[in-house]
């Protein structure tokens, strides 16, 4: 029974709650590093390592970290692991370090990692958190590989750097550039919608807000409520200005 539960924790991140395809988290690295299979693979592996390590440490420290300053604490822990990965890559795989560039440092602000810390690691045991981190990381990696395979084969006529004989002459280079990234990702999510629709329960997710680590700061969980708050603030603003003026008088 417990074995099954552990397996479910691990598998959830890969399929049912795939961070990229279902939860729509971590869009920035997804779009930016999927221009080639190699860079997608390195990004996926780097993020998975950081995710597993940070989940483990945050879960181990869950009773020590004060609740009010937890987000800065998580950021420091994550940033430490990102720096370690950066230094290791710079030393042993400088080519990949150059290829990933600024996106490697930006793993720190990847919503998937902070989101898992906030939503899972701070409430669960170390083993569960490691499994969850591994599942989510592999889910991220798989999604990156799917997108990058399509983009590299169609856009560059090659796979992982090896040229494909026939496709080489018919490459559509826009797919590897910025607009192609949005296009392929959009179509892939539409395909996922179609597939999950047949099985019944499609989880209606608004843009990353449900899984967003900052969602509690938006006072509630969705951006639509931010909308309401702004609307309320706007209607309040003139009133308060008026009050100040009257006080001055």
């Amino acid at each position, binding site marked *: 029974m417990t074995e099954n539960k552990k397996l479910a924790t691990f598998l959830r991140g890969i399929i049912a709650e795939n961070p990229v395809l279902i939860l729509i988290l971590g869009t920035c690295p997804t779009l930016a590093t999927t221009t080639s299979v190699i860079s997608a693979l390195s990004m996926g592996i780097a993020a998975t390592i950081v995710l597993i390590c940070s989940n483990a440490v945050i879960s181990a420290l869950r009773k020590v970290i004060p609740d009010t300053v937890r987000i800065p604490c998580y950021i420091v822990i994550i940033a430490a692991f990102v720096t370690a990965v950066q230094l290791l890559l710079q030393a042993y795989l400088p080519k990949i370090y150059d290829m990933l560039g600024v996106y490697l440092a930006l793993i720190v602000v990847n919503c998937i990692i902070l989101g898992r810390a906030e939503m899972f690691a701070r409430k669960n045991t170390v083993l569960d958190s490691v499994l969850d981190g591994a599942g989510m990381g592999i889910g991220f990696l798989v999604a990156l590989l799917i997108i990058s395979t399509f983009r590299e084969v169609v856009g560059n006529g090659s796979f992982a750097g090896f040229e494909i004989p026939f496709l080489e002459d018919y490459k559509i280079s826009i797919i590897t550039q910025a607009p*192609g990234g949005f*296009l392929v990702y959009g179509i892939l999510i539409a395909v996922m919608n179609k597939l999950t629709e047949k099985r019944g329960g499609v989880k209606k997710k608004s843009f990353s807000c449900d899984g967003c680590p900052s969602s509690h700061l938006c006072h509630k969980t969705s951006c639509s409520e931010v909308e309401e708050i702004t609307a309320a603030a706007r209607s309040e603003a003139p009133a308060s200005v008026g009050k100040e003026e009257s006080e001055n008088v």
Partner: protein
Amino acid sequence: MFKELILILMGGVLVNNYVLQQFLGICPFLGVSKKVNQATGMGVAVTFVMLCATAVTHPIYTYILVPCKLEYLQTIAFILVIAALVQFVEIILKKYIPALYKSLGVYLPLITTNCAVLGVTINNITDGYNFLAAMISSLGVGLGFLLAMLLFAGVRSRIENCPSPKAFRGVPITLIAASIVALAFFGFAGVVENILGV
């Protein structure tokens, strides 16, 4: 020198638009672009925080991390400074400029984990800009973000009213619209260099 600064500014706004060409700050771009006034608020808040963040992180890197040979702590130092700065700006605005706080306040906490802000501070260091150039570059990137948000909010309000296939509703059609907007920005490649004759 002046020409160079203009080039950096326009490069940030049009050619290397962070959202549409470099995929930084996609979350707020897609999440908070449903209405034009919201998009403006977020864009202005991001520009403001980018300027503040660069004004603080650039000196920290040049005068603290480099002399102490601690360059590898860049990522940790920058993200902490940005997180603290955002809180600080929020408190200051709340206390002294309540009107501005009311229009920008709700967006500020969301900006801490915005990769565009961390991205611009790191890129300014990687590109070896001096303080002035770094500030101009941040301004350009921020304005580029605002421009992309505004344009996209306009496009999006129309998409919401269009009948699209069921599987495409919501996220997918928004991404495809973003792709078309990005395609338009593609046309700016090389424009600035040619106008200035650099």
